[in-house]
């Protein structure tokens, strides 16, 4: 009877150890991944709060409209990931700089004539927007 009890306890003990290993082996990576995603989301939210742009002018310089944009926030912006809309239509553009640092002005050129009264909108890579009436 005593030996049976010891054998049964040993089997259940090993099962408990295996279960603990399964729990720790699955739970720890899951919690780490969620923590990383949460941290990334927090960084994105902070960057959105720190990002700001202002369109200062729009000039037609045949064959392009030249848009001057000030980085009035405190983050560096990748200009190739910005989006520009003219009267609601997305434009293909080039920029004078690849990265647009705080307190700097970048010029964006797109081959469509912005007439007076036309609405231009710029959207940064993280979704911050500014409007300008040409």
């Amino acid at each position, binding site marked *: 009877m005593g030996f049976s009890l010891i054998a049964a306890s040993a089997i259940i003990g090993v099962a408990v150890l295996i*279960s603990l290993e399964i729990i720790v082996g699955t739970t720890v990576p*899951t919690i780490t991944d969620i923590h990383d995603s949460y941290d*990334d989301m927090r960084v994105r939210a902070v960057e959105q709060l720190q990002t700001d742009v202002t369109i200062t002018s729009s000039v037609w310089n045949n064959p392009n409209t030249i848009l001057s944009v000030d980085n009035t926030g405190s983050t560096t912006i990748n200009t190739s990931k910005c989006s520009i809309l003219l009267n609601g239509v997305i434009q293909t553009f080039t920029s004078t700089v690849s990265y647009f640092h705080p307190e700097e002005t970048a010029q964006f050129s797109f081959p469509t004539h912005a007439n007076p009264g036309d609405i231009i909108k710029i959207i940064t*890579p993280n979704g911050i927007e500014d409007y300008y009436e040409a």
Partner: protein
Amino acid sequence: MGFSLTSTQVIFFIASVIVAGTVSGVFIAVTYDVTSSFSDRGERVQDQLDIEFKIINDPDSIPSSGRNYLFYLKNIGGVAIPTTNATFTVFVDGELIIVANYSFVDTSIQTEEVTTLNIDTDDISSGDHTLRIVGPQAIDDEFTFTI
């Protein structure tokens, strides 16, 4: 009598090992199922935290092409988003748009990129409307515009 006692002990021993083995097997299987579900739930939570998108149209000027209005979706999250009629659901003024009446230009949007959503002009009349786009893991964005 001595043999009977030994037999009884052997039977008790085998029975206890079988019971302990069964209990252990069930315990390990249940633990594995629970942790697998926890892991799956963790992946979904991770997707919910990573996915974020925004409708970037000018609300006063919605462009059109042929029989479609064009809406621009920018991926402002941390992962690429699959853009298919299966992963996205579209509502205009709370009314569900049938799958046949909207489509995406691309099959996925990388982070910080833009894709175009085409919605049949028959589903949007003149006037003010609210567009709600629901993406993977029920992440959504709402946009009020005028046609």
